[in-house]
């Protein structure tokens, strides 16, 4: 930390320098700040109220997940994966299990694949609901957060009935599922989906045509398609900039190839378009769930693999469409029961690189909106 002190980059204590005299102020947001979605520290160099330059300092939540993976067996590492993006634990688990299955050349049975798809789509809706609530709260709308959490509660109840946990579910196992779908799961999911259609209209009514909401989000934090591709942003961030890229359509996994759904894209990549894209994604996820419950195929829920997994030496990269973007697992195995190396491609970390480019020239109030629209989760950024 000494180098930053030397460069005078730290905020001067007290207010000896005048507000008028100093042409540039360093404003330090975080790591303990109400609107940085976790322990992200943002150092903003301000000229008056305009942001001239910004620097994100991360690492406050680094737990060394990838190093731990080298001393755990494949099954033992599965719960660690849930703790990365703790808001969308189910899709983390799906990504890891499918990557190891691909490594071993095993295929999960169709019934397991359909149930996995249903749970992942429900998790996407839950993650987007949490994003919408906190994003609106940062911009000042106090009411949406309570509506969103009311719906999210329904989804978490379904998870709890299915695998006993609400947040870090560890719902899937390598090769299929641990638990059979509890009887009445179809009715619960159908009741949620029917009721969710009216609820999403409620959010739209509150925010979409709201003059102040449009004023605060239209034209804020614009990310052009070229910049998005150059940075490698994925998920709603790149789709809002007009690039039609979704792993569920490009490289279908689990049971996505059996269902029809559209990929919403935005035009000019500002916060308002990302808001519209995510709202549309929630509707599409609901469509997938409805189609999936129609016919959950009968059959086993677990492929025939031994108790002790010893995948053949080799490497695999498998990516899935997590709510935040492309979540990739690169696993290298040396034939033993423990992976030689597990590298995880976190969508939030890479989307965060677009932060500095989007925040320049905007005001302090917009910085908060931009952090919200990137939908980053620090567990995934720091790993």
């Amino acid at each position, binding site marked *: 930390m000494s180098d930053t002190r030397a460069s005078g980059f730290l905020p001067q204590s007290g207010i000896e320098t005048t507000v008028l005299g100093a042409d540039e102020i360093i404003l330090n947001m975080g790591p303990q700040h*109400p609107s940085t979605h976790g322990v992200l520290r943002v150092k903003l160099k301000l000229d008056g109220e305009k942001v001239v330059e910004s620097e994100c300092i991360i690492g406050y939540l680094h737990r060394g997940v990838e190093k731990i993976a080298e001393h755990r067996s494949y099954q033992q590492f599965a719960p660690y994966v849930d703790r990365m993006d703790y808001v969308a634990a189910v899709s983390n688990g799906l990504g890891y299990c499918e990557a190891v299955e691909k490594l071993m050349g095993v295929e999960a049975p169709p019934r397991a694949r359909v149930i996995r798809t249903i749970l992942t789509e429900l998790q996407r809706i839950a993650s987007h609901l949490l994003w919408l609530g906190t994003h609106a709260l940062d911009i000042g709308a106090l009411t949406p957060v309570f509506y969103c959490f009311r719906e999210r509660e329904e989804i978490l109840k379904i998870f709890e009935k299915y695998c006993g946990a609400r947040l870090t579910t560890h719902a899937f196992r390598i090769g299929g599922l641990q638990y059979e779908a509890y009887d009445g799961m179809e009715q619960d999911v159908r009741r949620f989906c029917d009721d969710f259609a009216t609820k999403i209209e409620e959010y739209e009514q509150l925010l979409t045509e709201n003059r102040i909401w449009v004023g605060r989000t239209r034209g804020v934090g614009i990310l052009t398609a070229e910049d998005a591709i150059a940075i490698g942003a994925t998920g709603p961030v790149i789709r809002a900039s007009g690039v039609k890229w979704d792993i569920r359509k490009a490289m279908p996994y689990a049971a996505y190839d059996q269902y029809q759904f559209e990929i919403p894209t935005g035009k000019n990549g500002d916060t308002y378009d990302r808001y519209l894209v995510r709202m549309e994604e929630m509707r599409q996820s609901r469509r997938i769930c409805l189609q999936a419950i129609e016919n959950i195929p009968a059959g086993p829920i677990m492929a025939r693999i031994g108790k002790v997994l010893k995948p053949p030496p080799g490497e695999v990269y498998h990516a899935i469409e997590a709510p935040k973007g492309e979540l990739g697992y690169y696993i290298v195995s040396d034939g033993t029961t423990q992976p030689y190396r597990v590298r995880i491609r976190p969508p939030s970390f890479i989307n965060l690189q677009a932060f500095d480019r989007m925040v320049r020239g905007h005001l302090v109030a917009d*910085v908060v909106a931009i952090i919200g629209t990137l939908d980053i989760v620090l567990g995934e950024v720091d790993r």
Partner: protein
Amino acid sequence: MNALVEFFRPHLLPLLYAVVIVAVLPLIAGYIVLLERKIMADMQARLGPMRVGPHGLLQPIADAVKLLIKEDIIPENADRWIFWLAPLLSVTAGMLALAAFPFGPAFQIADLNIGLLFILGISSMGIFGIVLGGWASNSHYSLLGALRSAAQLVSYETAAGMAVVGGLLLAGTLSTRRIVEMQAEQGTWFIFLAPIAFFTYLVASIAETNRAPFDLPEAESELVAGYMTEYSGFRWALYFLAEYTNMVVVASVATTLFLGGWLRPFPGTTWLNFLDYTPPLLMLLLAGYCFYRTPRQPVKVQQGFLAAVGLLCLLLAVILALPLLPLAVGGIEAQSLRPAIHGGFWFLFKVFAYMYVFMWLRFTFPRYRFDQLMKLGWHFLIPVSIVNVMGIGVALVLDREAGWPLWQALVLTTLLTLAVAAYLAVVGERKDSAAVGGAERSA
């Protein structure tokens, strides 16, 4: 000695009213906070404070005690003297402004000949409380908050002033009691004659009391708590009391000027006289609801409390019903008491209705950005209210000289003002999108 007593005789009643208001105000402010939390909860599909007393009715007392006991931190090299003075300034400005309001035809502390101007002047003193408070707590965040709130208050005070002038033109006098009597003479509230003035005043008053969607100075997400960051314990409670007193003052100005102070809706039209019976009926309804809910309370003491509240509403209903009955008690004809007693009810009813709109806006709208807030104030609100003042002036001249009926002239000028407002909005939109385009590629 009796010269002194003789001298003070005419001032005894206003002195009594003043003591009543100053004593009751912190209680009312506390219950407005509870009301706000309940309404907020109701809008957000939850229950709000339910633990302390039945339905949270004792919550304000609990809050007050907590704030009194809480430790009172003064920042290290803050300017202690000003740090102590600032909240006091805010509260006194708020309370002093309450002196000129006619809560009922009889219930008024001081019928000043410059009533409304006095209120505007004193409430503009409230800015010092915020600005000095922010400066004295010697922290970067509160200084930024203080600077922002000073700029916001000054610019929206002009808009509010112009909107009030719009209403005053119709009233023709500054004294608050005369304004309400003028509305009684003309038989309609001024909100129907000068609607634009009312709505510009509504928006300007929200901005003037620092409430969402204009609560920039203490926007939690950026400046933590604006000028109030370093205050805690009782000092912070003073700021809170000042904010709610300002809200009551602003609501009372709107009620007196636009919503016909103590008059019942549509005072002039006789066939609407059944409206006079609504106050007691409303109170009866409230009492019935309290008694209906009493058996459902879980704890014995809560049942007792709710029953007591029910009895209180019943008592109020009886008091309100008294003047309607054709009986004369002690030489005073009961009917003559009606405006006095019902007046207080109608005044408070309108003040709470106005504040309900405040709370309603707070929980539906996100927050404005600071430059949008300034742009709305200077580029839209002030020009519209100035054009509105000119419009009403022209309408009055047309009415007095050219003999047009007043409401016809006013409709014409209101439409003209709306046309100007629409033009300003369109220009604002176009400039807005151009500016946004520029900001995006400024890196």
